């Protein structure tokens, strides 16, 4: 099987996000960078498929020079090779430009299944997997929590509001991974040593022949709206506090 796993480097979930004073983005100084957690599920699933059915896992990443660490992490987990699309012209890429770059790389690689995270936890767009599928003319299965490979198709489970769907799709296809799909492994020490020698191909936008002009632009980044200071409810007994809280929810907040 030829399996592709797309990965993105993002700030850790514990990161405090500080908006730049001029609203042009976020302060990156103190941030710890990690592989997008949803992409980890994709890499793990790719590795499990390879281990069971044989084949090859290629990691593809669009990102700045530092994103090479994330590619090495995936290689240390067990992926075979990497492609790093790195170009200052892509630093502010939107979902469409990112998907175009990924599609330009992947169209020239053999591919049976392409994994993406269901969304990246930085811009939270959740668009790249579906856009990539469209640009490659493949079916998409988004938000997948269970996957079974039959040889010529995949059967997946995807939860929707109040139900879950079981869907079968012919290969090749794009799958976006949701939490619950698996428990990603940690890279082993020998894995980390081996990863250093695995091949990573670095490409820029010109080599891929893609347009880098974004279609959706974040014109301004702003901090979240401030919440008014809250009230701590006083009282001697828990019951008293509960009564007062219920009264405030009814009379002041009017939410019950």
């Amino acid at each position: 099987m030829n399996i592709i796993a797309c990965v993105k480097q993002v700030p850790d979930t514990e990161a405090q996000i500080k908006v730049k004073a001029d609203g042009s983005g976020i302060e990156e100084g103190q941030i710890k960078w990690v592989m997008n957690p949803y992409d980890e599920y994709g890499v793990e699933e790719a590795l499990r498929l390879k281990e069971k059915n044989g084949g090859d896992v290629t990691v593809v990443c669009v990102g700045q020079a530092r994103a090479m660490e994330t590619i090495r992490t995936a290689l240390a987990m067990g992926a075979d090779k990497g492609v790093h699309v790195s170009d200052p012209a892509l630093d502010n890429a939107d979902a469409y430009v990112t998907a175009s770059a990924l599609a330009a790389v992947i169209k020239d690689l053999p591919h049976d299944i392409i994994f993406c995270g269901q969304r990246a936890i930085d811009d939270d767009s959740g668009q790249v997997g579906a856009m990539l599928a469209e640009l490659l003319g493949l079916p998409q299965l988004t938000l997948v929590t269970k996957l079974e490979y039959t040889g010529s198709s995949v059967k997946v489970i995807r939860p929707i509001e109040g139900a879950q769907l079981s869907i079968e799709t012919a290969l090749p296809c794009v799958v976006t991974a949701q939490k619950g799909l698996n428990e990603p492994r940690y890279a082993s020490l020998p894995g980390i040593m081996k990863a250093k020698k695995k091949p990573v191909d670095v490409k820029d936008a010109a080599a891929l022949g893609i347009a880098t002009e974004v279609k959706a632009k974040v014109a301004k980044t702003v901090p979240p709206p401030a919440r008014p200071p809250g009230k701590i409810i006083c009282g001697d007994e828990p019951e008293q506090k509960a009564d007062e809280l219920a009264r405030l929810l009814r009379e002041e907040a009017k939410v019950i």
Partner: protein
Amino acid sequence: MAKGIMIVAEQREGALRKISLELASTARKLADAGGDEVSAILLGSGVESLAAELGKYGVDKVFVGEDAALEPYVTEAHAEVTAKIIKENDPAAVLFGASVQGKDLSARVAAKLATGLATDCTDVKIDGGKLTCTRPMYAGKCFGEVEISASPQMASLRPNVFPAVENAKAGAVTKVDVKVEAQKSKVLEVQKDTSGKVDLTEANAIVSGGRGLKGPEGFAILEELAAVLGGTVGASRAAVDAGWREQKDQVGQTGKVVSPNLYVACGISGAIQHLAGMSSSKYIVAINKDEEAPIFAKADYGVVDDLFKVVPALTGACKKLIG
């Protein structure tokens, strides 16, 4: 010249989803500012009668596409028909719901039309035909104001944030010719959640529990409070990772991002990744015995006490008030 606002309505089994009415009302408001028309795309099998309800919420014209291949929802078939209707009618802006289906569809349609899309918006404004979309990023740790330079300008709206307001218009039906090619994907089974619980992203009230619940059985008192409030029980990552609750109950940056009217956090300290997922709730209540817990900084009402005493008492007090 692109003109008017188009919404992509969502229905399941012949009933409109609430987000469709939120989309209709929001589009009406945007269109009225420029004296424009609101149109809707409604796809499925035997769904024409739903057009009247869209009309009631401000839609002038409904493009109805009916075919057995459009029910239940399959991405590629819906994307093909949706993109075709958008292309033929050239609206200035297209609004989707940021529901599971809406997110799946909108990104595919945006790629088909080679345009930009702002996902999961919590505010949209239009000025001289130019759409500005405000959307949370980093799960709400900051917000981005997004502009779309291609046409049509596309956005998906977060469920439960925009009000659905009646504003009767014609809702006139235009039938669309649908030709759907053989699909590569097939829905084998729809397994419904029979608990009757509203999904967290659509709930008006959420009662969430964390490590302070001490185990899965602790959630019973939260279920009771949620039942009285007509809400749904959520959980922190700590509670889900401990196996106390299912993954679909998780609120936070690696779970669901929610905006209920009322969010009651019980025994949740308030790790930043949890706060990110619930801070757009209208009212936040925190119940925790640690007065230093970061959750109190986000709470409108805080109770510093033992949740195992406060929560049952609150359930009783709410029951009395609600009657």
